[in-house]
């Protein structure tokens, strides 16, 4: 049965739903591309390839290169722990992992700021030892890891639950030891879930603004990621630079969406 919804009401729903989507999501997406390229390709490209623009891009990629692998390894291990090893601490771990989802990035940034700042718990000692965390790359990395901790865990847990343990048991009856079982059976079975989590982690790290803006100090050419670069360019009325960097980020976002779609299909297959 097609739900017995007469044609007019179905059309009304379509107009309302899709109209809302158009105004809220589609129009902004079109607008950003239009706005960026309204004076041709040159201005945005020039802005992006400027020294500061390139540096921001490199720094954003550096965040990804450090935070994503760390959170991926942690995420897989943590998911295994949560699903396969009953422990009374698991509920607590689960709650802590969910926190960054629901927390304001500004609060995350402030917490790091207060821990590693000049008057913080660790700041003075670390400064004495010559380790700079706040207003430099390590602090930004910590913020990126914090905000993106949940994704791999969250995407891996349900897949691990779904595959169950029979395949792993079968592998062990065939002579595989625990590591062989993990590499040859478990990991290949959860790979799309993990990959999906990695995509979400990457997107979050690339786009993070609030937490990083507080811990970085946002010094151009030094501690400025792409989102920070967008903000500063906008504040300084350098619109081609702001839009150029935004388009770059939007393209990365679209790539993310594409990857998410492809992976979702693989996962369901």
């Amino acid at each position, binding site marked *: 049965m097609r739900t017995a919804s007469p044609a007019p009401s179905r059309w009304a729903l379509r107009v309302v739903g899709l109209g809302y989507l158009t105004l809220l999501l589609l129009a902004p997406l079109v607008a950003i591309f239009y706005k960026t390229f309204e004076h041709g390709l040159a201005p945005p490209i020039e802005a992006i390839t400027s020294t500061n623009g390139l540096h921001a891009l490199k720094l954003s990629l550096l965040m990804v290169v450090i935070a994503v692998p760390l959170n991926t390894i942690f995420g897989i291990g943590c998911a295994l722990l949560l699903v396969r090893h009953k422990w009374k601490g698991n509920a607590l771990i689960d709650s802590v992992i969910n926190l960054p989802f629901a927390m304001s990035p500004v609060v995350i940034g402030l917490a790091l700021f207060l821990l590693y700042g000049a008057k913080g718990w660790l700041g003075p000692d670390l400064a004495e030892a010559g380790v700079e965390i706040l207003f430099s790359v390590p602090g930004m990395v910590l913020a990126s890891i914090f905000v993106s901790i949940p994704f791999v865990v969250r995407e891996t847990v349900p897949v691990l639950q779904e595959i169950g343990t029979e*395949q792993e*048991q079968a592998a062990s009856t*065939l*002579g595989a030891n625990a590591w062989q079982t993990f590499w040859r*059976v478990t990991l*290949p079975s959860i790979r799309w879930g993990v990959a999906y989590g990695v995509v979400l982690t990457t997107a979050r790290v690339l786009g993070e603004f609030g937490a990083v803006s507080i811990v970085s100090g946002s010094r151009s050419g030094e501690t400025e990621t792409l989102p920070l670069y967008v903000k500063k360019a906008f504040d300084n009325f350098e619109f081609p630079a702001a839009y150029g960097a935004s388009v770059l980020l939007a393209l990365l976002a679209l790539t993310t969406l594409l990857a998410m779609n492809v992976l979702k299909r693989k996962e369901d297959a």
Partner: protein
Amino acid sequence: MGISVEGAVKSFGDFQALDDVSVEVPDGSLTALLGPSGSGKSTLLRAIAGLETLDAGRVTIDGEDVSTKPTQKREVGFVFQHYAAFKHMTVFENVGFGLKIRKWDKAKIADRVHELLNLVQLPGLADRYPSQLSGGQRQRMALARALAVQPQVLLLDEPFGALDARVRKDLRAWLRNLHEEMNVTTIFVTHDQEEAMDVAGQLVVMNQGRVEQSGSAEDLYEHPANEFVMSFVGEVNRLGEDFVRPHDIEVVLEADDRTEEGVVKRIVALGFEIRVEFVLGDGTDVWVQLTRNELQRLELREGQIAFLRPVQAKSFNGSTPSDPPGASTPQGSDDGGDAEVSAAV
């Protein structure tokens, strides 16, 4: 490679899955672990494979105590009810998995895998993925995978449970033949008594974490140790203290001192076999298995009064299914406490 389990105990929280179980499986035999769900049969099988760690007791394979040996060193072939196919691998890779783990070289693996795929009648499907196979094909692939590493023993956990009736029947016969050919000690778990009797040479009947009786199909049917076994391996009527199989009741039209009066409630024709249901004077329901010829001779009608005479009844003198652990008996012998009552005709 004989298998012996001595005094196996395993509980999951409050649930006692195995309660002092001892079983002997002779070398080269085909043995069925038979019992209702929750009887501990799967747990016993998994303990033999090392997939479950016993709380107490010993598992011996070919004279060697393997109780503390991890699964991957026990050299057992295990077949799971839901196949446990490696979904991300082709049939070829599935079957060759154990050989790859054992670091065989590629050419040898290929030879062996194709040999096995022929054996399980799946030649030409090597490059398929498990999702492209039918249930029966998947189970045969799982069997090939287990056999590829030439295990000392083959363990099958409800191997046909997830298959439909037709396929199940085919695979039974096929498993029996395979066992004759390979002669590897095989244990399989099932809750289906017909399947157990059809396939296995030796049956071990389990209930509530204990072994009720073990022996050949005929032993169990003819000389059940207790009411549980009697009712589990075949149909049974209860007449007061006595238990009698539906084909061991004679229906006559004239009463004598050994008959009971009953009213025919329903007559069900199941082909050649006829099932006649009676209600006795005290309200007990009894059914009797007759042949078509017998029915025609008696000319029974629904509502008619007839007389039932048990030809062969058993009573177990109050012994209950959950006998003391000693109830596990060696093959063929009857438990001491049971009396067999044969009514002379």
